[in-house]
């Protein structure tokens, strides 16, 4: 192609007649293998390689022609070409036109030479990375070329437990526990001073045996109200017990009005007195 002279691209290492020959040569093997490429950049690189293009002096225009030619052939052969290959084709066609047609003065578009240089750089970089990957994998590899100790003996680590507890902790633990136990015991004793109804009933029965006259209920109980804590319990249990005893006919209860003192006396004595009256 005679286009090359017009591009102003770097030295063209690609003889005019080369593309067609190469394309003809490659058409079968490359086009049918379109799926084998890892993207348009890979294809471009492959084309450049197939044409033995020096990537350092690449003519993007010539390579673009190769690529576009390749895509055209693929289309003719009704091979599905993935979208990104077509995008690249469109971009290369645009780049080609920019390279061929001088830009209008004062255009602020990116210079086509810069676009071409950028593409060339990417191709070089990809090629370099592929080369590096090959060299990397050629290195002697562990467990393939070079072997580590087959039976490593990991360093033994003796874990020694060190207890930070000291005598004060020990004594404190002991004293706390003993003291808590004491508190518990004291509490239990206090709970025993609360009256059950049964206890109250027994006590009232015992006391009432000596009570022929009306006496204030509270007074009876006062003897048992040892502490403030037990007062409520004693009063409640005694009251309930006295109601039970009254129901059973063992005692009599009397209250003049609400919230006035409650009086109690032995039922039998009352009966005896009535009998005496009679």
């Amino acid at each position, binding site marked *: 192609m005679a286009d090359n002279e017009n591009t102003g691209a770097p030295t063209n290492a690609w003889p005019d007649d080369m593309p067609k020959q190469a394309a003809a040569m490659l058409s079968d093997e490359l086009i049918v293998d379109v799926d084998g490429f890892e993207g348009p950049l890979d294809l471009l690189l492959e084309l450049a390689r197939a044409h033995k293009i020096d990537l350092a002096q690449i003519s993007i225009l010539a390579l673009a022609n190769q690529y576009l030619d390749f895509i055209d052939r693929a289309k003719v052969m009704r091979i599905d070409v993935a979208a990104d290959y077509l995008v690249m084709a469109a971009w290369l066609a645009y780049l080609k036109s920019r390279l061929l047609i001088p830009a209008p003065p004062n255009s602020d578009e990116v210079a086509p030479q810069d676009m071409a240089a950028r593409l060339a750089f990417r191709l070089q970089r990809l090629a370099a990375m592929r080369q590096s990957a090959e060299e990397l994998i050629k290195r002697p590899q562990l467990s393939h070329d070079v072997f580590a100790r087959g*039976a490593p003996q990991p360093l033994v680590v*003796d874990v020694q*437990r060190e207890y930070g507890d000291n005598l004060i902790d020990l004594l404190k633990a002991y004293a706390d526990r003993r003291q808590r136990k004491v508190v518990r015991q004291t509490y239990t004793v206090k709970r025993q001073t609360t009256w059950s109804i049964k206890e109250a009933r027994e006590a009232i029965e015992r006391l009432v045996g000596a009570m022929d006259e009306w006496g204030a209920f509270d007074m009876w109980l006062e003897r048992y109200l040892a502490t403030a804590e037990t007062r409520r319990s004693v009063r409640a249990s005694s009251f309930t017990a006295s109601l039970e005893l009254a129901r059973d006919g063992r005692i009599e209860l009397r209250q003049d009005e609400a919230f006035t003192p409650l009086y109690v006396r032995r039922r039998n004595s009352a009966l005896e007195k009535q009998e005496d009256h009679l």
Partner: protein
Amino acid sequence: MNAQPMMNQDEETGEDVQEAVVTMHPMADRGQNLRIVEAMLFAAAEPIAMDAFKEFLPEGTNVESILADLTENYANRGVNIVQVAGKFALRTAADMGAILRREKTEQKRLTKAALETLAIIAYHQPTTRAEIEDVRGVAISKGTLDNLLEIGWVKMRGRRKTPGRPVTYGTTESFLDHFGLNELTDLPGLQELKSAGLLDGNLPPGFDIPMPRLSDDLTADEDPLDGTEQMPLEMHLPEDSAPEANS
């Protein structure tokens, strides 16, 4: 020594490597064979049998002599060639074990329950599990006594001469050592605990702290251990299957 040339192994093991080797000078050969045996010993995960070496060496190689040389070469080094069950292996020298062993101290603290149990054993020894639980007011959780026995602060002393013959526990010298006590009688008594502010003044009459004993001799109500005591792990499966209180 059974390193006669084996004529018919060539097809089986013939590889590039061998061909390369046989063209070498006999002495170079021997050096290379030493290298191969050394590399095999190093890379192998298991000890290697004599025959296994032969598979990797030119036929007719005197493996015994190579191993003998290598063994001697390694004799005074940090790594030795040893024979294990008739096979060969590289092992770090016996005296390296102690040097390469690392000690790591792990700071730990007893659980509250363990500390209490230990304290109760210290003051009330010889004491039984049931007595400890009585003082604590809660059952001892499964691992607590185990832990104290494992640490070595508590030991089984004997058996109480009571029905069920429960094991009696006491503290050890290591316990005294750790807590900086010269002897058990150094444990502070009631008045000292009070004046240290560890016990408050409002204790009921009769509240007492036992006088720690002086010796390890069995008391009158103890029998010696009879050897049927189980080791820590199973030792104190709850006798009564009481659900353990979490203190």
